[in-house]
């Protein structure tokens, strides 16, 4: 049965790191790649993110997501390669089309950044239980309502998948062909969109009743079921991350 989350349940050093440190990592990893314009440095950061994913034993799970963003990446390469205003040196030609070196180099940088962004979020989302993350933020003073919204966002993909499955079943059961080749699947995908979106909106009303009757909007102090054991290395890790971040900024300003 569907678990409704993207979280991959493994036991690894990465899984044990506390959610807030991972959140800090996501922030620093992504911003650093944008601060630094050096290909090698960005590539290094990406490599490091990949290594963390591998340590977390979830590298395989990120590949489909990178695959999906490939469309975006391809279009970046083409657009930048063709049309970058500084184009001067032809890198290579595909028939009549010339890809320019300057544009290509920018495109490569953007690609590295995008892949790193996806991978860094992967570190957070694939190795952290969504409720752990939200709870950590709630304990830091985030409003429960916002926490719930965040939680819903984290679940939105698996939930849409589950809902799509239900509606497909309902449609198949009544004679709409959805099995078969790519074209058949594509054709059956479009009529799904309306019901999926509208259905999830209607579910929202029932969900909010469920939340209300469990005292979700109570004003008093909340308690938490689990005591979060403080992660032993979170301070050193966070300090290391911040030092690295400062170094990136300094390096960028100096060069």
């Amino acid at each position, binding site marked *: *049965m*569907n*678990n*409704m*989350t993207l979280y991959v349940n493994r036991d690894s050093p990465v899984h044990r790191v506390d959610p807030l440190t991972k959140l800090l990592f996501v922030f620093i990893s992504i911003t650093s790649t944008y601060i630094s314009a050096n290909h090698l440095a960005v590539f290094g950061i990406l490599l490091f993110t990949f290594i963390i994913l591998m340590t977390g034993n979830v590298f395989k799970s990120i590949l489909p997501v990178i695959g999906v963003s490939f469309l975006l990446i391809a279009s970046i390469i083409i657009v930048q390669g063709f049309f970058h205003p500084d184009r001067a040196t032809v890198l290579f030609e595909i028939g009549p089309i010339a890809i320019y070196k300057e544009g290509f180099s920018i495109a490569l940088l953007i690609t590295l950044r995008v892949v790193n962004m996806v991978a860094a979020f992967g570190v957070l989302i694939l190795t952290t*239980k*969504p*409720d752990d993350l*939200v709870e950590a933020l709630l304990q830091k003073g985030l409003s*429960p309502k916002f926490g*719930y919204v965040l*939680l*819903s966002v984290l*679940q939105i993909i698996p939930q849409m998948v*589950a809902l799509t499955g*239900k*509606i497909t*079943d*309902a*449609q*198949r*059961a*009544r*004679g*709409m*062909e*959805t*099995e*078969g080749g790519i074209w058949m699947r594509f054709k059956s995908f479009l009529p799904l969109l309306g*019901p999926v979106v*509208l*259905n999830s909106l*209607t*579910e929202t009303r*029932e*969900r*909010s*009743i*469920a*939340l*209300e*009757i*469990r*005292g*979700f*909007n*109570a*004003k*008093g*102090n*909340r*308690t*938490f*079921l689990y*005591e979060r054991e403080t992660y032993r290395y979170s301070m050193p890790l966070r300090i290391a991350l911040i030092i690295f971040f400062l170094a990136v900024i300094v390096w960028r300003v100096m060069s």
Partner: protein
Amino acid sequence: MSVLRVVNLKYKYPDSSHFALDDISFTVEKGEFVGIIGMNTAGKTSLGYALSGLIPHFFKGAYGGDVYIGEMDVLSHEISEITAKVGLVFENPFSQMTGAKFTVYDEIAFGLENQGVPRDVMHERIRESMKLLDIEGLQGKNPFSLSGGQMQRVAIASVIAMKPDILILDEPTSQLDPEGAEEVFRVVEKLADEGMTIIMAEQKMEKLAAYADRILLLHDGKLIEDGKPEEVFSRDDLREFGVEPPVYVKVARTLGIRSEKTGQYPISLDEMPRERELRFHPSDYIKSKTTEANGTTTAELIVRDLHFGYEKGQDVIRGLNVTMSGEPIAIIGQNGAGKTTFVKLLKALLKPDSGEIYLDGNPLSRTTAAKLASRIGLIFQNPNDQIFKHKVIDEVMFGPLNIGQSSKEALANAKEMLDLVGLADKADENPYDLSLAERKMVAMASILAMDTDIVIFDEPTMGQDVRGKSKVKEIIHSLHEKEKLVICILHDMDFVAETFGRTIIFSDGGMLFDGPTREAFAQGDALRLARVEQPHITKLVQRMGYDRIVLKETELM
């Protein structure tokens, strides 16, 4: 000091022209168990909303009168203050999970965390309520991976853990297997003994008669009677309010058993006399009545060595062999036994891991669910999973159009079927504005409109009142007359006894029994193992000292 006081309560939903609650007044004392009865439009659910503050704080609309929870009046307090004292469990378990938690254990904790209950108390209360509802085995599972019945128990546990002063339950057992329903009543009674006030809307009159201290009879938003169960159930005009008295009352009325002092009928099994001479219609008379439509030929489903599991190594269906054709077949068994999975396999919505299903000799593995649509119709358990259009008539026409009916034909069919299920006047409404029972009927109409050779129902009586149930029964009979094969998953044993000639007892992914319904209800061990009970009438006749299996009141003279 009464724990709950309702004074001249009136309420109208926004955009509605009539009162959903019309001048209702009553008081409830601490520890009372109050049953609410009435047909589906009587206002039972609205009353539950009003007592828990959802009306008027969540559902706006016109509101008059007062509701007091102890000293607190509902109108001027926020929902969260009210829900600290009033717990609400409703009918559809699928929409009671918060979605904020990923295990049953954490789900139960959700309300406690919001209330600020200290951690050690929280763990204690969660364990306690899981134990009460016998769901300790599910604690690590994701709430959304559970069956309907299991989920409902989680919903009840989640609310009980919050220790409300008043617990309101709106048809909480309609998704549960008979044993599970009985357990819920026992738990609730125990809570009432411990001082919790219980208000429960139910369609299972036998159970309310046995457990409730008081009954409120609602009709059209008005409180018709507020009295002791034996008073209310002895009324002669109950049928006018769409309520059927407990079967014991009906039998007692036929046999003329009533208290000389009060003129009231016995309402529960315990109150019925132990020995009483009964006369039965001769068995050939019964036979001629029950098997009149037999000899018809229907489509045939043959299942051979069927295995299926959602996850590797965890078989939900373990090696089923069965041939289904002819008279309507009931499938009974506990929540989570694999009944729904089985019918999804029959409909080719799921692919078996091994084994094969043949429809009139053709293996299903060579076809798709969509191609089967014109042969096999499946009405889902949860209508919300089935309905996806935003107008009732479009929903009902979807299937017929897909299997090649012209739009004129489809429209005519759809209208006819809506008429059949009693929703002709709702054709242009949005299915989501209808009640659960009505949505269930929409789902039914949308399958029936396809005129398939085989019709499979997954718990069609869920949430239906007496009228709804008799409608379902009529539909099943007429399908059989039209030589269709009907297969039906059910938790309502009285309904099974009255409607089906053949019964399959399902347990743990296999069949414990397959044969005539009369024999099925003689299988004590199998019934216990599958957590189902004998029909009430069967129990009654056995209690009166006969060992024959009686399925209908009409078998008594």
